[in-house]
């Protein structure tokens, strides 16, 4: 098992589809290729901290600026987020904690461009992404973000291996998928081996345990070599031991691969395993 290929390195950045073809019409596409020349591997960045050309981000991968979001229940407006401000640096493992119902999932959905904020900005690699057109956000989710959820959200009709390959299948058309299938299947198998599931390739999700499903979800989130992993209570539905194993995988990915992870949890004990904790209280970031 090689842990060198799991997360993008300089050498294979160029071959990343997200790098060569950004979201059409979006600001990410045009700038991310410009950034390619200047950006270096997050590990180096974190260590060396000397990239003068990166004038905008100042070591932030993802930033939320004054995010506001409220839901409407009939005529009544229910504010959930009332101006969330925070930033994630490349290679960081950040935990967002807050009580149940405090708006953690809502925030994560906003950051993952699954939903749009009422006001405020989300900046990814120096580009605003919350106002991208739908197609641009689709590409962003497909190639730049990995997401895992409390309820795993695997596709029940597909096998473990197919679930892991789903983002690739979404990205590629029939012909190009069949053409490159060998390489992608190899990578999916490597990822499944890394999360310890190489013996479950042809199982359907209903034949897997909760921990196995979450491992599958992690493998799926990594298949596109994302820069950022968004995790919504990944251990929320698991017993302590299994949850601990999942967390260990995430920590190893962060440490060994330099993967940036933003994890939401209501569990203080789990949050403590992260590099840094952001506390969400009454729709705002409170002092940790």
């Amino acid at each position, binding site marked *: 098992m090689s842990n060198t290929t799991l997360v993008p390195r300089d050498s294979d950045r160029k071959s990343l589809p997200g790098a060569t073809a950004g979201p059409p019409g979006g600001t990410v596409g045009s700038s991310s290729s410009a950034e390619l020349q200047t950006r270096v591997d997050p590990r180096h960045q974190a260590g060396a901290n000397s990239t003068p050309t990166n004038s905008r981000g100042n070591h932030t991968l993802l930033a939320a600026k004054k995010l506001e979001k409220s839901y409407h229940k009939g005529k009544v407006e229910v504010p959930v987020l009332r101006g969330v401000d925070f930033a994630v640096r490349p290679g960081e493992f950040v935990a967002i904690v807050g009580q149940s119902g405090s708006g953690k999932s809502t925030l994560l959905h906003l950051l993952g461009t*699954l939903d749009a904020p009422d006001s405020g900005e989300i900046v990814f690699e120096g580009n605003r992404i919350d106002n991208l057109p739908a197609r641009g956000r*689709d590409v962003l989710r497909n*190639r730049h973000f990995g997401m895992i959820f409390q309820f795993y*959200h695997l*596709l029940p009709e*597909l096998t473990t291996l197919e679930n892991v390959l789903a983002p690739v299948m979404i990205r590629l058309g029939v012909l190009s998928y069949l053409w490159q299938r060998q390489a992608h299947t190899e990578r999916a198998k490597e990822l499944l081996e890394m999360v310890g599931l190489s013996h479950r390739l042809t199982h359907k999700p209903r034949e897997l345990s909760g921990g196995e499903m979450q491992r599958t979800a992690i493998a799926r989130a990594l298949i596109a070599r994302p820069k950022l992993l968004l995790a919504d209570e990944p251990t929320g539905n698991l017993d302590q031991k299994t949850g601990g194993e999942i967390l260990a995988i995430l920590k190893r990915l962060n440490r060994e691969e330099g993967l940036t992870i933003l994890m939401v949890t209501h569990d203080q004990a789990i949050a403590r395993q992260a590099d840094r904790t952001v506390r969400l209280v009454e729709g705002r970031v409170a002092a940790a």
Partner: protein
Amino acid sequence: MYKLLLSWRYLRTRYIALASIISVTLGVGTLIVVNSVMAGFAREMHVRLHGILADVIFEAHDLNGFVNPLWHMAEIRKVVGDDLEGMTAAVHVPAMINIQVRGQWLTRQVNLIGVDEETYAQVSDFRQYLLHPDNQKQLSFLLREEGYSESARQLPPSGWKYRRLKSHYEREYELQQRMLRQALGEPDPAAEQAVSPASDSAAGDTVPSDSIATDAVPESEILATVPENPLDAARADEPAQVFDPSTHQHAGIVLGIAIGSVRQRNAAGEVQDYFLCRPGDDVRVTFPTAGMPPKAASEQCTVIDFYESKMSEYDSGFAFVPISWLQEKRVMGDAVTTIQLKLKPGTDLNAVRDRLRERFPADEFPYRIQTWRDMQGPLLAAVQMETTLLNILLFLIIAVAGFGILATFFMIVVEKTRDIGILKALGAPSRGVMSIFLSYGFSLGLVGSGVGMIGGLLFVYYINQIAQLIEIVTGQEVFDPTVYYFQEIPTIVHPLTVLGVVIGAVLIAVAASVLPALRAARLHPVEALRYE
């Protein structure tokens, strides 16, 4: 890629959706069967109708026809020109036919047609429908020696052989009766003779001379030997010669098969033909003369063949005699009631008809000019109408199936809400999600109508065997030959119709999946993901 994979997986795991396309399958199958059978029927009817009717027909308003047909035919030849392939004149007149069956006289109403032996076959398929193989080649109104049973119809022994045997038997019977009476000392048989013609002519008031001659055959003639050649002796209405039924025939007549026979089931339930008369028997024909006031003329004719077009209307209504004989007996000179034209294949019938109408305007000439389509228009239109109606009804069935698909798909979309959210979270565009459901509907429609098409075509191919099978299982005849004259169910498969039906069904299935697909595409990913 995921679209194909997912719609394939949905197809394999959602059997409920397969159930919803069974009605598509059935609809497509029935549509193909119905269209094929109706097309087969329509063609058969066209062939039959056209087989009897010439292309263009002049039909007199008057039963007594119009005079000088030769002039008319010459004029027609001028108008039509090279397109003309054949032309004939005929006399149509309503008539009664009396057939003696086991001593009882049956009376039947017919349409008596005087035809020209030489030219009548030029304008229609008339000859093909005659039973005797030689008559199919060249019609003659003379009785044939034998050979009637060679036809498809299993005729009992007919022809001269039968006629001789019959007259022989009748004479011997007569002789016996006479001897019996003499032995008993009953009145002279001459008195008997006076009675028999009277009963014979009960239908009409004129007693034809040859009828008397039949009964007045001298005793010495009874034992007369078989004639050298029946055809030589066939000049029936030679008044000077004494009429001998074993060597002479009356004027020949061709009867529609259903006039001379009855098709019925026997005690065992099998279809059987009962012959009231057969070639070689004499029948009495009664028709109006052309004079004013018309009188009834009653003549003896000898059945020389049957006519079977398998159109029951014609087979039970038409009798054919030589035109010159009919003109003479009706005292109508050279007048004819119809002139029929056969045109070269591919000629525009309506154009020719219109040219003829121009040449023979209705206010000057006492007849109507029509094409065969004009004459059979209502019947053909009825068949067409029936086909159209059935098509509409069956397409409605497929439309109902479409609503079934719609409902099922909505259920599947609701059931798959979470999966749709997952796909969107993984970056699938709305269009892609939509096309999953569209291609799902498309493949359902394709599978449904493909299976329906294959089933329908197989059904059409084996329709007669299937009919037999149903017959064996239920004991009920599906395709009753006493009702239809076809031996087999006629079918024609038009590939374009099949293609149209299949495409139509697939379109309906796709159209039914549009709404659910749109709904799936509009689903908000977050709401879908919160969905537990």
